[in-house]
Structure formats: C-alpha cells, structure tokens
C-alpha cells in the first residue's frame, strides 16, 4: 500500500512539473497539442491525488498502524467517522486534502465548458499547477503521508478527544475549500495581467468562484466558532487567537474584493485595487497556513507536531514577488480608468469607504496578531495581544462597517442629493434611535452595545426599506401579490438580493455577538439535592452517575433545570475518561433558546458526591448561528443559476491559437 501511496505522490509531482512545462511550451510555441497534453496531465494529477487521498482514507479506516500517520492520529476504538476525519488531523494528511481540492479546482478550470477555446485556460492552469507543485514538494519530501514505522504498534495513539467532535468533520473541510477556492480568482487575475486584458471579464468569470470560496471560508470560520464554543479551553466561539485571526484576515479582504469588483464591472474603475485585493487575499491564505503550521505564535489551534512554516513563508514570498512583478509590469494599462466619480455622496464612494474599513480592519487584525513578534524583535520579550486589545480596536471598526452596510444599498449611484438621503434614511434613522432609546429605557447602560444595536437596526431597516420599495415598484405595474412580487423581484437580480440576504445574516450575527458580551458566570460546589441560582434559572443537582461507552467511561451529573419557576427539563454535563488518552475530556451541557444559552460544565467532584459546576448564561448566542445560516442561504441564492442575467461574459482579450 505504501508503494502505491508514495508512487502516486511522486508521480503526481512529476506530472505536475511536466504539465507546467508543457503548458508554458504550448503557450510559447502556440501549439494546441502541447496544451492538450498539459490538460490531460492535470487530469492525471487529480486522479493520482484522489488515489493517494482515498488510499489514506482506507489506511485510516482499517487502522493500518504500520503507517506513522495512522498510528499517530487513530486507534482501533475510534469511531469510523473520526478515523476518516483524522485525514486532516495532522500536517501531511491535511496538506493532502488541500492538494486534492487544488487539483480538483485545476481540472474544473482546465475542462470548463464556459472557458472552451479561451486562451486564458493554459495560463490559469499553469498558475494553479505552480501551487500544486509546491504542495507536492512538501508532501513528497517534507511531511510524507505514507511514511512507515520501523515496527507495527499494537495500538495507535488515538485522536485528541478535543478533535472528536462533529466540528472536526466540517470545519477543516469548509475552511480548506474556502482557502483553496481563492487560488482560482487569483490565477484568473494574474492571467488577465499576463494577457494584458484589462476589462472585467476575469471578474465576471470568477464571480461565482469567489462567492463560493467566500461562503466556504465563512462557514469554516462559523463552524470553527461553534465548535470552540462547545469545547472548553478554546476561549469561546471567538477568542482572537492567531489561528482564528489567520482565517479572518482573508475573509475581510475577500469581502472587500466582492464589493469593489462591482465598481470595476459597472464603471471600469479600481482595476489595480481589485487585483491587489485578490493577490492580498490569496497571500493571506498562505500566511494563515504559515501561522498555523510554523509555531511562531502560541495558539491552541495550531498543528503542533512539525515545523513546516518556513516552507510556506518562502512560498508566500515567491507568490507575492511574482504577483507584484506582474502587477507592476502591467500597471500602465490598469491605470487607464475610464470611470467617473461625480460626488462624494454616492454608492461608489460608500463602496470605497467599505473597502477602506475592511482593509483597515485586516491591518488591525494583522498588526495585533504579529505584535508579539514585533515586541520580541524590538524589546526582547513577547507581549500578549488578546481579547481586550482586539475588542477595543475592532469594535469601532466593525461598527463603522455596519454603518456603511446600512448606507450602501440605498444611496444612489453617481450622485446623491440631500432629498435622496432624507427620503432613504430619515425613517430608518428615527426608528433606530427609538430602538436605542428603548434599550436605555430597559436598563442597558453600556455605550457600545446601545450604539451597536442602534446601528444594526438601522442597517436591517434600510435593507427592508429597499426591498419594500422594489416590491412596490413592481406591484404598481404588475399588480402582483406581495409574495409573488418579492419572489420575482429577487430572482430577477439574484446577486443584489443575495447580497442583501447576506447583509441580513451579518446583522443577525452581530446581534448575537454584541449580546453574548453580557454573559454571566458562576462556579459553585454543591452537595446532592442542592440548588444553584443564576439569573432566573434554578438548577438542582440531583445525582452523579457513571456509564460506559465502548472502552471509555463517562461520569455525568443529572441536573434539573427550572426557569422563572417553569420546568425546563434535565441536562447532563459530562466528563469522559478515555482508554487511550491520559487527560479526561469535559463535555458541556447546553440548553439553548433564542434568548440565551444555559451552559453547564461539570468541573469536578468529591468522594461525598459534592460536585463543582461552572454555569454560564450566554445571551443571544443562537443568533450567531442563525445569522450564519442566513448568510449561507444568501450566498447560495446569489450564485444559484437562473434564467435572468445568467449570461457567460464574452472574452474580449487578445486572441491566441491555444486555449
């Protein structure tokens, strides 16, 4: 098996190199046969990567402990789903998955029907192959997935209990789909530069790619947050950990890119900026991988076993230097903007402000993330840059972003008048101020949450107003019923209304994020039958018991919960003791409602059955997850194919004999 595995890795590397050379030769000689050979080679690379990955899945699933990777991350008692998920638990396995997605995307582009006879294809494929070669060098020579041990252990080390969670199945996969997905628009952008095509063709062709990649990255981050929320020791759903920041930064720049491309598509402006943003986004995905795998910064989420970060740093430098060289060499062409800015009060300006805030936010996160290293370089010691710093710095930035989100949909293109502003924003602004006033009346005193909820309301209301106006405009002519008018309005411009749905999702998430800051926590040790009170919850600790799950022991507490005198039911926080892992694992019990989460942890117990619990009441957390569902629905709605406006853009760049 290891021969097949290693052979597929090395053969795929050799074929990737071959494909890259043959593509370059094909482009140079304008020989379609060579380009076709390159395409066939990319398909072969994908097949070999699939073989390697499925072989690894078989090895993991059947507990072939002679393989170092299998022995390091699985054990016989591990449920099959986690044995398979162990593929991305370690460095080499996760990089194999990454390479699988990359080669899959390369084949999708190389054999795309929409790109048939398009001269960009060999260039895009070559750029993606350059990335593939890097990953195969790592897999072939640095961290080998099919490495054998000198002996065959009876049992594997098992998977860290923290990773035995549904989050482990979804989070890395979605995150990688997002990370790798940005390689495609990046490759298109660089190709457009090489071919000197300065129109918006590449933007239109990659619109769906980018939204899908962005959606996966968002999902990856949210699922990661949900997992961290339920996993003790990871600091809640968002702790501004360097690894979390690493995936947040490309999300911010990709969001900026998704907005600024509209200016280029519509007005032919910001060409340099858009290309810079997609280069930055892709560079940040590599930088994130460097952070996760280098160990330069302390993180609970980092890969701990090897140090391959330096390779990613070199790769990052090569990508940035190459991209900047291509960008600078075509700068004179991109500079020739043909668009106009007529007023500071216009949708174009609000998009620019949106970009400024998003990129400024990216810098703030980047700066906070690397500041410990800066401090070490300057003063000789690392400082901690944690939650208080990021909350203080990012809160005003993100509030500014919500404000711009509120303005963008209703402000006019070209030029907005005072009347336009009054008509569009006066009513939402008044209602938002009333909402903020109500919150003060209800006893909220902290300035930030009041401001935040006021702005979120303003944002949601402007969107509702925009949709309401669209419906009314339709109904005046068509006399349709409201739901039909809404449906037809939305499907006729999926991109716009998909975007609005996404904004709604962000708004709902923001409600949850702001609300969850008002959490309450208590830690108490109580004997059996005693109660613990927190807010209007009364928790009665009834008994402590033990059960067996396979080879593992589970100690759990049975707790009866009442809220405001009403019976809620029972919850059972647990402690798991694994046969193959030294440290026990704490499983929290959560009772969720739209208003708040009751979060109970069994911290410890005494011989007389007194038990210690940590109990938290986390307000509005559910809205973070609900908002993310809405966001995904919006993304799917935006990219869903339909008969309206679903036209493949026409390539107007230079013609070539090869495609």
């Amino acid at each position, binding site marked *: 098996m290891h021969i097949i595995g290693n052979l597929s890795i090395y053969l795929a590397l050799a074929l990737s190199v071959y494909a890259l050379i043959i593509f370059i030769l094909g482009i140079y000689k304008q020989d379609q046969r060579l380009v076709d050979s390159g395409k066939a080679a990319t398909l072969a690379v994908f097949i070999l990567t699939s073989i390697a990955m499925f072989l690894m899945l078989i090895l993991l699933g059947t507990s072939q402990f002679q393989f170092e990777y299998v022995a390091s991350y699985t054990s016989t008692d591990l449920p099959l789903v986690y044995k398979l998920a162990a593929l991305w638990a370690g460095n080499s396995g996760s990089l194999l998955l990454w390479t699988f997605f990359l080669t899959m995307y390369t084949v999708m582009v190389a054999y795309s029907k929409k790109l048939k006879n398009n001269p960009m294809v060999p260039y895009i494929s070559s750029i993606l192959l350059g990335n593939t070669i890097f990953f195969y060098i790592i897999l072939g020579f640095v961290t080998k997935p099919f490495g054998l041990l000198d002996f065959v252990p009876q049992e594997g080390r098992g998977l860290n209990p923290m990773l035995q969670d549904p989050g482990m199945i979804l989070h890395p996969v979605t995150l990688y789909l997002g990370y790798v997905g940005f390689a495609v628009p990046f490759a298109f952008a660089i190709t457009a530069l090489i071919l000197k095509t300065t129109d918006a063709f590449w933007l239109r062709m990659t619109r769906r790619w980018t939204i899908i990649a962005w959606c996966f990255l968002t999902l990856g981050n949210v699922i990661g947050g949900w997992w961290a929320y339920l996993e*003790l*020791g*990871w*600091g*809640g759903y968002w*702790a501004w*950990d360097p690894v979390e920041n690493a995936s947040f930064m490309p999300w911010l720049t990709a969001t900026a890119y998704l907005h600024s491309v509209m200016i280029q598509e519509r007005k032919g402006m910001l060409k340099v900026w858009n290309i810079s943003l997609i280069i930055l986004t892709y560079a940040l995905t590599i930088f994130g991988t460097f952070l996760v795998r280098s160990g330069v910064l*302390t993180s*609970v989420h980092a890969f701990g076993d090897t140090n391959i970060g330096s390779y990613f740093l070199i790769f990052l430098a090569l990508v940035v230097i190459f991209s900047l060289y291509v960008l600078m060499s075509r700068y004179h062409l991109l500079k020739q903007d043909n668009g*106009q*800015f*007529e*007023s*500071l009060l216009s949708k174009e*300006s609000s998009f*620019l*402000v949106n970009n*400024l*805030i998003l*990129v*400024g936010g990216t*810098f*703030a996160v980047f*700066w*906070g993330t690397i*500041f410990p290293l800066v*401090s070490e370089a*300057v*003063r000789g*010691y*690392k*400082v*901690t*840059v*944690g*939650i*208080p*710093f990021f909350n*203080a*710095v990012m809160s005003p*930035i993100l509030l500014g972003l919500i404000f711009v989100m509120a303005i963008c949909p209703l402000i006019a*293109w*070209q030029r907005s008048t005072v009347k336009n502003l009054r008509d569009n924003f006066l009513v939402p602004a008044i209602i938002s101020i009333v909402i903020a006033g109500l919150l003060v009346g209800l006893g909220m005193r902290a300035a930030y949450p009041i401001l935040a909820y006021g702005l979120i309301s303003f944002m949601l209301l402007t969107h509702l107003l925009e949709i309401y106006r*669209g419906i009314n405009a*339709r109904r005046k*002519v*068509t006399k349709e019923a409201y739901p039909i008018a809404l449906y037809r*309005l939305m499907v*006729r*411009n999926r991109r716009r209304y998909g975007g609005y749905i996404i904004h709604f999702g962000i708004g709902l998430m923001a409600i949850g994020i702001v609300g969850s800051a008002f959490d309450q*926590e*208590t*830690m108490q040790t109580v004997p059996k039958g005693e109660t613990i009170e927190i807010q209007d919850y009364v928790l009665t600790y009834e008994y402590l018991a033990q059960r067996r799950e396979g080879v593992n022991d589970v100690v759990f507490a049975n707790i009866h919960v009442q809220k405001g005198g009403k019976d809620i039911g029972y919850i059972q926080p647990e402690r798991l003791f694994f046969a193959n892992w030294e440290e026990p694992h*704490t499983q929290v019990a959560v009772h969720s409602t739209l208003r708040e989460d009751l979060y109970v*942890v*069994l*911290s410890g117990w005494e011989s007389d059955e007194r038990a*210690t*619990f*940590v109990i938290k009441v986390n307000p509005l957390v559910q809205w973070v997850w609900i908002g993310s569902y809405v966001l995904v629905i919006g993304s799917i709605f935006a990219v869903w194919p339909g008969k309206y406006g679903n036209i493949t853009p026409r390539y107007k760049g230079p013609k070539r004999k090869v495609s």
Partner: protein
Amino acid sequence: MKLIKVVTLLPLIFILFSSSISALASGEYDINSPEVKAIASQFSMQGHENHDLATCATKLTYYEDIAELLNEGKSEQEILDYYYSMYGEQGLRAPKMEGFSLTAWITPFIILGVAGFALFIGLNNIVNKQRKHLYKDDEEVDIDKEIINSVIDEERKKYF
C-alpha cells in the same frame, strides 16, 4: 460652594468606605464576584487566559488569589501593580497603553485615518475636476442626463 461640595461628597465617601469595610469584614469577594472577574480578565495568566475556569487549575488559582487580595483590602490598581511587578508586561492580556506598546493600539487607527484622509482628498479632487469640466460644456450635461437615464433604465430592468 465649598460647603456644598463637602456636603455632597461626604455621604458618598461614607458609603464607599462603609461598603469596602463591610466587604473586607465579611470576606465578600469570591471567584464569582464581578470585581474578581474584571481584574482577572486583564491578566494573561501564563497563557491560560482563554482556558475555562471549570477545567484550568492555573486560572482558578488566579481567581482565588485575586479574591483573597480584594478581601485583604487591596484596590484594583494595587492588585494590577502587584502582578505587574511579578510578571511585567508579559503578564497582561493586552499591551500597556504607554511606551512602545502604545504603537500596538494607535497604529491601526493612524493607518485608517491617513488612508481615509487620502481617500477623501483624492476623491474630492476627482469630483471637483469633473464638476468644473461639466459646467464648462453643455454637451457634457447632455451626457450626464444620458448617463442618469441609462441608470434609471437599468434600475427599472431590475425590478421588472
């Protein structure tokens, strides 16, 4: 005026004093006290700051020590100084807002401010140039109308 100030401040001082005395006397602070949490949230706790109180002995020790210091009558600032003298800036959860560490806090806002100002100036110049150009030539006004009409037409197509 002075008398008014004294009359106003005296009860306040009395309330503050008596509340701190009663807290001290009864050993009021424990790990669940908001004051303890507020102080503890400022420390990096030797890398355990994001750990959970339920399962992290180091974090729990910090909480207990802070509660004890508060019960001894130490103020928040004294406790912060106490830990700072032991661990220095590395013991804090965020850089101090002084000296070199101040750059951590202000750099993002300086960058944003400068970029925002540059954007404003740049846009303003473009807009002013175009305005001058527009008012000089009536033909341009016609083009402007044409652009507006095309935008209206485009918006109409979106709705119907």
